[in-house]
């Protein structure tokens, strides 16, 4: 009987257990370490390991790295890893939140026009020559962010006005329409200005190349705000999942929860896109992978998606910059290469009624 009880509880863990959190931390830490040790420039991993150790307070070891090698570790690899951590975490948590709010397993962070808006913004910045590729005052991420924000705002204004009722379908349809419109304009501009085609194309495929810590600093405040909001709403998403009327009859206002989560998830997606371009599939496959392991409670899926999304993007970026070194693969290609087959697998399981 006791055994039986234990088993059932394991089937449905509703709260984050310390074991799960510890596991997620271990995966993330391992990803960071591996990514720090390997790269296009070969530096002896054991020395990097010593170098990392030497930075802990109270430990003084000479790692034997040259100044240039030290700079590669701390100013090239690490900021890129941290950016991957933030962007991967943001996209995965935004995806999990969207899936919870729309109660649709196929929702992704680009759903409401974020991608198309950012694409248009970035294209305009590139075509107009406003981007100089230089750090925190570069026009490109700002234009991409504004593009996303405008696209999502239009989607919410139109879809929200139509869908004053309890339906989210009008919001999704508005998102599709807005995305088509923005993509059409973006394609038109891109065709007219074919000289910049390559640059636009490479942005659209996504990349995590950084110039020191600028991108990390730029994205940090938005990341913090949106993550705090999404984490705090994870319980409400579970209540929402019970059903609209049940939620209402229990005193919860589903519409308010929905607006807050949609706002935070869109902010997360827009800021991720602004610094890294359109990285595909992280927002869809990571939450589903988490669900396959821990079940569908949003109180688990939302926070764990952060760790797994961060680890996934750090590792795919390692592949992107080493597979064809010294050339770099666009990270969007790598995530999609691994993401698409997995996604098909999830889809197949779904049609079997397993999820």
């Amino acid at each position, binding site marked *: 009987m006791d055994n039986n*009880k234990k088993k*059932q*509880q394991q*089937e*449905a863990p*509703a709260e984050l257990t310390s074991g799960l959190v510890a596991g997620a931390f271990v995966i993330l830490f391992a990803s960071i370490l591996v990514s720090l040790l390997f790269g296009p420039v070969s530096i002896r991993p054991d020395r990097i390991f010593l170098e990392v150790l030497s930075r802990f307070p109270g430990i003084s070891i000479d790692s034997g790295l040259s100044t240039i090698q030290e700079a590669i570790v701390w100013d090239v690899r690490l900021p890129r890893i941290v950016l991957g951590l933030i962007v991967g975490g943001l996209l995965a948590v935004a995806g999990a939140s969207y899936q919870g709010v729309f109660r649709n397993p196929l929702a992704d962070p680009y759903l409401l026009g974020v991608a198309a808006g950012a694409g248009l913004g970035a294209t305009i910045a590139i075509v107009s020559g406003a981007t100089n590729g230089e750090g925190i005052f570069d026009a490109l991420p700002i234009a991409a962010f504004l593009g996303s924000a405008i696209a999502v705002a239009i989607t919410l204004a139109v879809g929200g006005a139509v869908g004053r009722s309890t339906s989210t379908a009008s919001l999704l349809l508005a998102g599709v329409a807005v995305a088509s419109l923005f993509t059409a304009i973006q394609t038109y501009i891109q065709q007219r200005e074919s000289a910049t085609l390559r640059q636009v194309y490479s942005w659209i495929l996504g990349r995590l190349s950084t110039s020191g810590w600028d991108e990390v600093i730029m994205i940090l405040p938005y990341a913090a705000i949106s993550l705090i909001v999404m984490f705090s709403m994870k*319980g*409400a998403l*579970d*209540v929402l*999942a*019970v*059903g609209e*009327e*049940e939620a*209402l*009859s*229990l*005193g*919860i*206002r589903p519409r308010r929860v929905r607006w807050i989560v949609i706002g935070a998830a869109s902010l997360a997606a827009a800021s991720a896109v602004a610094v890294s371009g359109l990285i595909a599939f992280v927002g869809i496959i990571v939450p589903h992978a988490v669900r396959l392991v821990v*079940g*569908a*409670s949003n109180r688990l899926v939302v926070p764990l998606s952060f760790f797994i999304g961060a680890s996934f993007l750090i590792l795919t970026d390692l592949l992107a910059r080493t597979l064809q070194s010294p050339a770099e693969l666009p990270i969007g290609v790598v995530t999609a290469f691994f993401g698409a087959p997995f996604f098909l697998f999830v889809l197949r399981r779904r049609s079997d009624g397993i999820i």
Partner: protein
Amino acid sequence: MSSETKQQTRPDMIACENVDKWFGDFQALKGVTATIAEQEVVVVLGPSGSGKSTWIRCINRLEAHQRGTIVVDGVELTNDVRNIEKIRSEVGMVFQQFNLFPHLTVLDNVTLAPKWVRKMPKADAEIKAKELLNMVGIPEQASKLPSQLSGGQQQRVAIARALAMEPKIMLFDEPTSALDPEMIKEVLDVMKDLALGGMTMMVVTHEMGFAREVADRIIFMESGEIVEVGTPEHFFTDPTEDRTKLFLSQIL
């Protein structure tokens, strides 16, 4: 205690006056006027499409009425969001489809709203939930998932979930209509206990046995109107209205 005494001696919990409700051109409620006293159990009967469900859904504002007044525990239902929230926190509702959260245990289903809405500490919410599961007769199912339970057990969890918010009024919208006949009794028994415990209840159902045995008063509706109101004895043995007689002849 007879119904008349309850109605005469206790204050009104629900008071509806001339309530009209349209869906487009279709008038679903026509001048519905009725009061339900504290601790009273009222069963609403009537054919399908008579407006029974629409009416009780208006009482916690899942539907908005367009004319007339609905006052619940002294608070009038208007578009004022604060009033609606106050009412919803005092009115529990059980639906035909129990819609438990499939990925949470029975215990978590019951504690979710108190923890989230009432900010009740987890330990307190769980003690309360276990009491309620005990009350609805399934304390041993606390750690199971809804899919491991029978329909009747799931509906009892749904009742416990509504009770966890400590409502003053419980609304039941055809709570046994989706159940296998063999499981109806276990749900009705829980509702009967609740009624005996003094809960103010409004029940839309087709279960005549329950109406006869548990109700203080029966309200019979047809075509959006209240046709007849009376004690079960009056209603089943000596109804006044022809429409009531016709309904009873078809159903009994």
